[in-house]
């Protein structure tokens, strides 16, 4: 059960990063045209930034881990 939940989170994390990144790009575009709406400095955006940062960090760690693993496998094959 715990394993399933963990793997579900791991599968979902890249999509969370994609969704939140696109949302932030939308806010950046709106903010460059009309910053009076304060799309970047409010509490909701800060929450999005926190979630995006954490999910991006985890995704990054997973990607680099996978990269190291793949490189290791390739080296073994070459040997």
């Amino acid at each position, binding site marked *: 059960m715990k394993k399933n939940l963990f793997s579900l989170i791991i599968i979902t994390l890249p*999509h969370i990063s*994609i*969704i*939140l990144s*696109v*949302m932030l790009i*939308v806010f950046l575009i709106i903010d*460059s*045209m*009309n*910053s*009076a*709406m*304060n*799309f970047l*400095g*409010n*509490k*909701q955006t800060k929450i*999005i930034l926190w979630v995006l940062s954490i999910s991006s960090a985890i995704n990054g760690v997973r990607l680099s881990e996978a990269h190291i693993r793949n490189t290791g496998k390739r080296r073994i094959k070459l040997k």
Partner: protein
Amino acid sequence: MDTGKRRLLVIFIDILLIGIGLLVYALFHHVMPREGTPIATPFPTSPTAYSFPNETEASNPLATPTSMGWSYEGFSTATISDRYSYTSKNISIKLKRHEKNGVVYFVQDIHIRNIESLKTAFAKDKYGIGFKDTAFNIAEKHNAIAAITGDYYGARDIGVVIRNGTLYRDARFRDVCVLYRNGEMKTFSKNEIDAYKELQNGAYQAWSFGPALLDNSGKPKTAFDSDVKPKNPRAAIGYYEPGHYCFVVVDGRGENDSKGMTLMELSQLMYELGCKVAYNLDGGMSAQMYFNGEIVNSPAKGGREISDIIYICENP
């Protein structure tokens, strides 16, 4: 399901979730009403400072300066009102429509005897995020004679908000315009404003939208602390001297065959009108002017609901 179809499905779900995310964000950011509370109440002022002059004590109370109210020859003992003007013993408003270089704009030249005749009102009479109503409805509800769009404070959670002497929000956001109980108006940059200090100095209203349209010497500006610089419908408040102000609304985006104004053009207009201080309020679809029971300009796309107005009314 093959890989291509699965990939398309995943992309579709991601795009759908982006849309849902943006909708939920908008709901929490500026749609769902959230009531706020004042953070500082008015400081006590002298009760006699703004009472009306007793007409029996003065030979010509309407034109004679007194320490108890501002004088102006245009006040009248009887209340006279038509589509383009309003005069009473306390208020004189003249509305003019101008057309210049393909731009239509309206100017309300306002004289008041007492600062209490210039008030601000919130939509639904509630301070907070997400409370909205039409400028017409807010003006009618408060028996306004003349009114103009405010700073749409409810669209964001930053910016100094002082309304009718009460401090509601103290979070800096760009230029601030302060109207004091003594009738004077000043503009401050983001770094200069101290809301509590100004409240102690007698601040009666403070708006946070901007930018300030004239420099400290009353000359037009060429650089502005704003993103909305291109031609647009505009709303602005101008100050000549205590008791003498103007409301200006510029039509744009094709309404009334008017192109709107850039901030530089609006700055020049306020200077040509003779204002000493001028401040840009919320424009675009919000830019609306009310006078004697009707919206006099042609708001872009029919206008939108706003969170606050500035209005002129007779004192109770």
